[in-house]
């Protein structure tokens, strides 16, 4: 037991199409776990199954409580922050409004949290009133992380944070994810195409293939198995 998040035998479907087949997975407290695999393997769907934004069945537990019947809003209230593909940015609203929304389910003053956010993202200070949709892709990804910091989540679900970003910025994003994990004790479940970077960040990884877990294990082990790397991770 002891896992922060435990999925057991989870199936998920989009209409007639089955996207996950009896998937089981765990994330421990203060752990970074990566989900790898090709396009369509079910990586994004796994995160959606957790935040209940896809039809799914099976057992899903977070900190000893069942997620099965919780809607996305209620799941967010438990301390799970899902940063979806496209980063969930409110493009029409300002940077500051986005940050306030990050802390929506929390009570109390935002000042201390904003000060914390600025430690990670000092550039945000001068951009508070900028419309979020006019930020660059990298800045929007940073804003998505900053929003998560405002929330003080226990578990962060990150969907392809490197998508469409320059390598330098990808490095910066992953550095901040590691820092969040170390300093704030946030557990992270990370979905990535970029296997090399995510294996360097995560302590464990799952490799999905057509909705099933094909391999799982510590990152070093996955990275060191030549055949596995070649056929599933593509590097």
């Amino acid at each position, binding site marked *: 037991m002891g896992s922060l998040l435990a999925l057991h035998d989870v199936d998920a479907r989009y209409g007639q199409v089955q996207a996950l087949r009896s998937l089981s997975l765990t994330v421990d407290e203060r752990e970074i776990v990566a989900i790898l695999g090709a396009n369509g393997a079910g990586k994004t769907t796994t995160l959606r199954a957790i935040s209940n934004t896809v039809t799914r069945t099976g057992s899903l537990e977070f900190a000893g409580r069942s997620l099965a019947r919780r*809607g996305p809003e209620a799941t*967010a209230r438990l301390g799970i922050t899902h940063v979806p593909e496209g980063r*969930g*940015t409110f493009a029409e609203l300002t940077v500051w409004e986005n940050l*306030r929304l990050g802390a929506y389910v929390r009570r109390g003053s935002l000042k201390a949290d904003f000060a914390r956010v600025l430690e990670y993202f000092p550039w945000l200070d001068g951009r508070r009133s900028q419309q979020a949709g006019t930020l660059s892709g990298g800045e929007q990804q940073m804003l998505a992380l900053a*929003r998560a910091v405002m929330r003080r989540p226990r578990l962060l679900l990150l969907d392809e944070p490197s998508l469409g970003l320059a390598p330098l910025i990808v490095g910066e994003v992953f550095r901040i994810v590691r820092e969040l994990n170390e300093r704030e004790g946030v557990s992270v479940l990370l979905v990535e195409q970029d296997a090399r970077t995510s294996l360097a960040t995560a302590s464990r990884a799952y490799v999905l293939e057509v909705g099933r877990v094909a391999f799982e294990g510590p990152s070093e082990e996955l990275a060191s198995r030549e055949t596995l790397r070649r056929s599933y991770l593509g590097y």
Partner: protein
Amino acid sequence: MAAVSFTRGRAWSIPSVWIVWAVIAGGCLFLVIGSIESSLFLQQTISGLANGGIYAGLAVALVLIYRATEVINFAQGAIATFTTYVAWQLIAWGLSYWVAFACTLGVAFLGGFALELGAIRPVERRGSQLTVVIASIGLLILIEGAIGRIWGNQVKFMPAPFPARIYHVGGAAFSLQDLGTIGVSIASVVVLWLFFQFTKLGLAMRAAAVRPHAARLVGIRVSWMLSLGWGLAAALGAVAGMLAASSPSVLLQPSMMDGILIYAFAAAVIGGLESAAGAVIGALAIGVTLNLLGSYVSWITPPLLLPAAFVLMLIVLLVKPSGLFGRTRTRRV
């Protein structure tokens, strides 16, 4: 699926906004110069603004619901009429006008909230936006029928909230009624704007309206935000209804707001359907334009005023198809 990073820049290109503001400024200048030249013109402008203020309340109510669900609520006028009858009833029972006014706002808010919960949400869950539109037309018929059933179809007389006093400034005469109507309607829109801009709940409602999926993921109960939106829209509509019923040119009867709803719709479309400020500007423009046309152009008789409003709307849409402050939307396919 794999979405491109957002290159969604500003929704409209800058020059066209300048043109919109230039046209608005030009219109204002025309009104000011005209009012300095002629006191009759000033008088007609003020009473046009009062009419426009009434349209503005209902237009902003339409925009509130359209922004969140992309649905035009055809029952908005009927809801406003119903709540105006509630106000009339409270006054008939002996409450003073402003106490009745405040109580009616509360009743309207709860009623709008309940309508969304009871009549719209069950339909929306199963059907498309078109189903909701049709449900709103059903509500319109139902509510007007209910008004006739409860209060009868004869015309009622709503007392005026402002003393029937006329002020003379130079050669022009203003009624306190007109000035009060302008003041109350603008104030109610401003209060609503402050709520949306500066409260946590208002921010959550805006977020739920523009990005419902992302809003759920930060923990916002989107469906409650929609119900709240209906409540606020009904309250705003109630203000418009009560002001309209107090104006000497409108009679309190079950179909009171039908015509006003059409003007409000035209105003909302002129403003771009998603912009409350646009709806207010559109409503004031319609109010003033129609009043001036009615008094200066001899062949425009009252039955031609409604078509005139639509001509104004058509001209705006021909020049700027998304309305004055509408966003041209690019959809990812």
